[in-house]
């Protein structure tokens, strides 16, 4: 069985050495060892299959060029989690929970060619609006901007908004008014000295701490804003903080965020590979492990 068509596998920078194929194979096998009989993957071993680790595993298999058949069970599980309104749920037992998962699932549907599922997911994403509010002088941010929430009926936050912007952009809706407003929200929530917290840039005049994962994710979502001076602050922050980033999730998102803006990630990728190879099994979160594989692959999974 062959891998995914080469035309689908665009690489960021072919000059960056990839890990040897044998290492990819070992890591991929490790990921697949978490697969459950229903085709899905759990976050941690011993749990039930769940949407996010399953969809990220499907994307990781796509990224590393695994045989196309290997992604069929996770995709089948993921499709079973799509509701009639196009939304994706956390798991089959809680169909009304986890609407934020629709956006990353749409990316998997897009990459793996499931057009009907993608269309339904994109329609749902466009139907969801975060709450807005009057501006509050204690928060130096524009609360009137609409983004995407984690949970229906709540405010917009960096991660669900970034996922939605990426999904809509990949789905050909990069210039849709909602996508543009989502990007505006992300730029508005950027910490003045660089990076993103989970949502607010500051509180009572004090800047909040940047998180590596939300910073990397927001940078991916803002790829089309590349070159904006304000983004350089966040890119520089990630660049300068490389030695401080230690976790699998942080390293994966730092690589993904930097490489989609053309920054050098050689050092980070080496450390990411080391972390993935040495991670004790009980601590492997397959969602983060998949992100690591995607980052190491150098493939443009989240960017057009």
């Amino acid at each position: 069985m062959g891998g995914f068509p080469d035309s689908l596998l665009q690489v960021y920078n072919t000059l960056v050495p990839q890990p040897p194929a044998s290492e990819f194979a070992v890591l991929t096998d490790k990921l697949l060892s978490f697969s459950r009989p229903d085709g899905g993957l759990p976050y941690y071993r011993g749990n039930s299959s769940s949407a996010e680790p399953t969809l990220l595993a499907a994307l990781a298999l796509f990224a590393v060029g695994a045989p196309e058949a290997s992604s069929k069970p996770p995709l089948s599980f993921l499709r079973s989690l799509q509701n009639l309104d196009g939304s994706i749920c956390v798991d089959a037992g809680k169909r009304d929970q986890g609407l934020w998962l629709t956006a990353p699932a749409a990316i998997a549907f897009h990459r793996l060619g499931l057009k009907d599922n993608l269309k339904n997911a994109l329609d749902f994403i466009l139907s969801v609006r975060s709450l807005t509010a009057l501006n509050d002088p204690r928060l130096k941010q524009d609360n009137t901007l609409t983004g995407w929430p984690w949970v229906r009926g709540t405010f917009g936050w960096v991660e669900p908004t970034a996922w939605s912007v990426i999904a809509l952009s990949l789905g050909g809706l990069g210039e849709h008014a909602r996508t543009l407003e989502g990007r505006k929200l992300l730029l508005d929530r950027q910490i003045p000295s660089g990076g993103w917290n989970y949502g607010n840039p500051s509180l009572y005049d004090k800047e909040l701490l940047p998180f590596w994962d939300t910073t990397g994710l927001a940078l991916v979502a803002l790829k089309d804003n590349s070159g904006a001076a304000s983004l350089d602050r966040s890119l520089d922050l990630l660049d300068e903080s490389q030695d401080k980033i230690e976790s699998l999730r942080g390293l994966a998102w730092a690589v993904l965020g930097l490489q989609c803006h053309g920054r050098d990630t050689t050092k980070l990728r080496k450390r990411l590979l080391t972390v993935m190879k040495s991670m004790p099994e009980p601590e492997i979160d397959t969602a983060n492990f998949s992100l690591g594989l995607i980052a190491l692959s150098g493939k443009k999974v989240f960017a057009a």
Partner: protein
Amino acid sequence: MKRREFFKDASLLAAAAAYGDVVGKPPVPSCPVTLLAMPDYGRDLSREIAAVMTADGLVLKGKKVLLKPNFVEAHPARPINTNIAVIAGVAHACLRLGAAEVVVGEASGHRRDPWFSVLNPSLRAILDKKVRCVDLNHGDAVAVANRGRRTGLPTFYVARPVVEADVLISLPKMKTHHWMGVTLSLKNLFGALPGIYYGWPKNLLHLKGIDNSILDLAGSVPVHYAIVDGVVGMEGDGPIMGTAKPVGALVLSPFALAADATAARLMGFDPGMVSYLARAGRFMPGLGAGQIVLRGENPKRFATRFACPNIFKAMQGGPFF
């Protein structure tokens, strides 16, 4: 069944259960609260903690215990989280008392990355190998009926390890909170709810009213024991942006509200003026000083006044001891 067996073992907790069940004039149980001196995090108090738990009637032999610390964010200069030395001390005390399984679990409120929470190498390094650390943000959850209905939420999706534990021990940090006044063991229950259901932050609970959410959770997810890390608390703009406030004490009780009320008094807050604590006092024992039997160190040794945002200064009073 396991919960029932646990309550049967603990006579004091049985009194608490009765308190909630009787309509009319409920008996007011005496709620023991113990203050242990812990001047810094370099001490191993597992032996002392085990002794207090035993004196409080906590039976752990053969039980599955879940320790729920408070990890919100990680900042190098701010005491935001329950200190790992306290977590280790309590975990090892539980092992001393014969717990079959001790799990440290948290669904961190702001950070998805468990490396900044219970999967941080610094915590694992000081824990006995028999203690497991579990990221509650990412994993199975159980729909638990909301017994309070103040939020209008029919159910809470509670992390499975919390539901399956025989004994839940809440291990909060002693902190001010810029919306609620103080945050202690009851507010700490937010971290029993996985982020994959509620997001980062758990904005739904904020919009339903933080106090309502705390109370609904308190009525739906039983806390069997509370230990407040007041060795170094946080004053000012807590729970994230405040500054260190050394108090030098651990506050232990089988009654979460009694632990919280006592901790609040040590911080200079009148718990009857803290809205959610006062409301909790309507269905949980331990709010009034008259319901509390203080043991251990003299509270005057630790009593202080935490700086807080102006809007909460009216909640402060005392001296309480």
